[in-house]
């Protein structure tokens, strides 16, 4: 019982826990908006892990180049903030590009050769993860520290915490904004309309003359880029360095969230918060009571099973109740 209370309320017991929950939810939001985007366009992006991880590595590397460090020092010592902002923007653009490229490749393979993006995106990701692991542990490692990580980025590049001492920063609001913009794009623009129609009704879309192949590529690329955004903010807002195993399942969680949200980017916002809450709750429960890590995983699984099964069951219940009332 005690463990259960810890489980449900743990994340709200302190600013530290609550802030970190929001931070985690923000990162998940970026990535699951990406996953939802691919699903909407009728594709499955299973390469989220590498898209996040690679973008995070790119961000960390750009921001620890000597010229970036110099620009940060200039900004930190009261000089012009211009160069530092330039590197910050450059890192963001390259992170988007890295994620986008990893989405574009399976998208293009599907459009051109009909290769299943399910397989290609997964395989590309699976092949890339150990390469990135190696780069972090080897050539790109910060030799001065005892961690399997790249050098930490300078203070000037770090996003300020809005709920100290937690990690929560402005990226949470940017994530909510991104999900909202994605939802508006899908429901309120012609391009978004065509993307959704091509996703649900591919033959009809082709018949109506929509550029179905280009839509496939665009959907996968946008999905990759949004995962890249998660990688970028994981560095500048949360960890400040790219450590081994940084993505650690975030890509898969994002996919689960997008499915729970039924591919709707707006629903991704509450779904990410819920997911982050359950994850933080189980982490805290493990720390504060003698609950084993595996049993929390089971609790998580059961909760998500109920969430995803909830809607059809609710529908049936409603039908049964209605019939009762009618009689």
């Amino acid at each position, binding site marked *: 019982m005690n463990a259960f209370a810890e489980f449900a309320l743990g994340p709200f017991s302190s600013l530290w826990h609550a802030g970190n929950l929001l931070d985690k939810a923000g990162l998940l939001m970026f990535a699951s908006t990406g996953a939802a985007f691919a699903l909407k366009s009728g594709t499955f992006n299973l390469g989220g892990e590498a898209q996040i991880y690679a973008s995070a590595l790119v961000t960390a590397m750009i921001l620890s180049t000597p010229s970036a460090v110099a620009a940060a020092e200039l900004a930190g010592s009261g000089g012009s903030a211009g160069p530092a902002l330039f590197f910050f923007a450059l890192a963001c653009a390259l992170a988007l590009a890295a994620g986008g490229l990893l989405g574009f490749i399976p998208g293009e393979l599907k459009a051109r050769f009909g290769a299943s993006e399910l397989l290609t995106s997964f395989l590309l990701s699976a092949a890339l993860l150990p390469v990135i692991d190696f780069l972090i542990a080897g050539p790109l490692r910060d030799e001065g520290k005892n961690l399997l990580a790249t050098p930490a980025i300078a203070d000037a590049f770090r996003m300020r915490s809005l709920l100290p001492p937690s990690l929560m920063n402005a990226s949470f609001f940017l994530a909510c904004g991104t999900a909202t913009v994605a939802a508006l794009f899908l429901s309120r*623009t012609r391009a978004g*309309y065509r993307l959704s129609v091509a996703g649900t009704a591919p033959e009809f879309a082709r*018949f*109506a003359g929509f550029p179905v192949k280009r839509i496939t590529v665009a959907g996968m690329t946008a999905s990759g880029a949004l995962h890249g955004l998660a990688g970028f903010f994981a560095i500048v807002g949360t960890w400040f360095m790219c450590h081994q195993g940084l993505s650690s399942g975030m890509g898969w969680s994002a996919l689960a969230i997008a499915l729970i949200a039924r591919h709707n980017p707006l629903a991704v916002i509450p779904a990410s918060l819920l997911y982050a809450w359950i994850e933080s709750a189980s982490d805290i429960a493990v720390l504060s009571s003698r609950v084993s890590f595996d049993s929390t995983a089971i609790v998580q699984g059961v909760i998500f099973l109920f969430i995803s099964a909830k809607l059809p069951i609710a529908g049936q219940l409603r039908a049964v109740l209605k019939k009762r009332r009618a009689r």
Partner: protein
Amino acid sequence: MKKAELRHIRKIFETRGDAGEEVRSVAALDDVTLTFNPGEIHAILGENGAGKSTLVHILSGLHRPTSGVIAIGDSVFNAVTPSQAIGNGIAMVHQRPLLCDELTVTENILLGSPGFLARKPKAAEKIRAAADAWGIELDLSRKTHTLSAAERFYAALLGALLRSPDLLILDEPASILAAGEHERFFTALRAHCSNGLGAVLITHRVAEAVRWSDRVSVLREGKLLYSGAAKTLDELERMIDPEGLASRTARLALASDQKEGQACKIGTDGTAGLSVRDLSASPPNRTPLSGLTFCAPPGKITAIYGLPGSGLSTLEDALSGMLRCTSGSLATSAAVLEASEVAPSALRKAGLACVPSNRTWRGSNPELAIGHMLCAYRMPRFISSKNEAEVFAKKILEDERINAPLSRKTSTLSGGQLQRLVLDRELAEKPSVLVLSEPEWGLDIKSAAALRLKLAQAAQEGTAVLVLTDNPDSFRDPSFFSNVLVMEEGVLI
């Protein structure tokens, strides 16, 4: 053999409107009592939306009646489930059966069959015996995605027969069978019925009902008007469509059609209408097209008639850009397209519109909202909550008297409604060429007459109308067309 009875069946459908709108109820069936006897072919006639499908769906367990009972043999049910229906000897063959595309015919038939082990060779033997008894020629080891519409129907029929039913429900079988096959199929059905099999035949072809059935029931707007021995054609037609709209509009269309010779010169510049030169295509597993040359002059209704397998469906795909042609060219008043340039978007830009034979998946999609289906060509770049596309879609629904919110899925529309909406959507683009494939499929007399009127109107406004059809009696009156071409084995003869 058991007798099946429906007693005082009522079925109310409730449709939920857009937010804030009232829930509407529609009585699809209103106090219908019918008996289906063994050894009889019982035809159910009625126009689109009369409740024919709902009636048999209740019998086969797909729908629950709102009230009334179903009696099969000695058992009485409030509602049957599909497995109860099959268990009690009621099997249904759908017009466009859902088959698993990647499985063979045998495997498809075995799906859902009782028993733990699927004994394929033994089952195949049984299926072959059934096929022989019904005179069906079908390679059981073919994957179902290679089958034609008629072959898919036969595959589903064999699946139903393997459950040795007492009552066989057939949904519009005639519309997908070629003329010769049609005769053979009904002869076989007759023979089996004289051995005690009962058959329910849903059809909108009155002549077919008169010729083959022992008993006829007529439904209109959910009410049973008549059930008894087959009457004459005229009597039945008057019952189904008392206003006589069908004959009135047929005359109108005829009057508007001035018969002239073929005023279309192929190959000259400034071609109007559609002219096709040397079009060839060779898609796998389908009838190839070899060097088709023809034209559809503007202001005229041209028909191309061909039996299933003649290459007519290949031509449909070629003309809608869904199939890459190997050589030849296509010209409209707006553009000349070489075979390599032919794609759906290029064709639409050239002023060509198409109503495909596959309205469900190609002309639309069951998962799409009605509004999204109608506005495919008209979505503004930025969609505000009250935009012209929405106004356009609402107007179409209003003109067609379809009482449905735009957000509802197209799967809730009847086949006839969907056909009308797809046609309206294509016509609204004011095409210079309109290609229609099997436009009469699934339409009742009244809707078919309305379709004829619309086509005649479009032709009068200068559109070149091209109708691809496998039904020799299409549009009843051959003078409706200004020119009829015949296709056989991929060439025009």
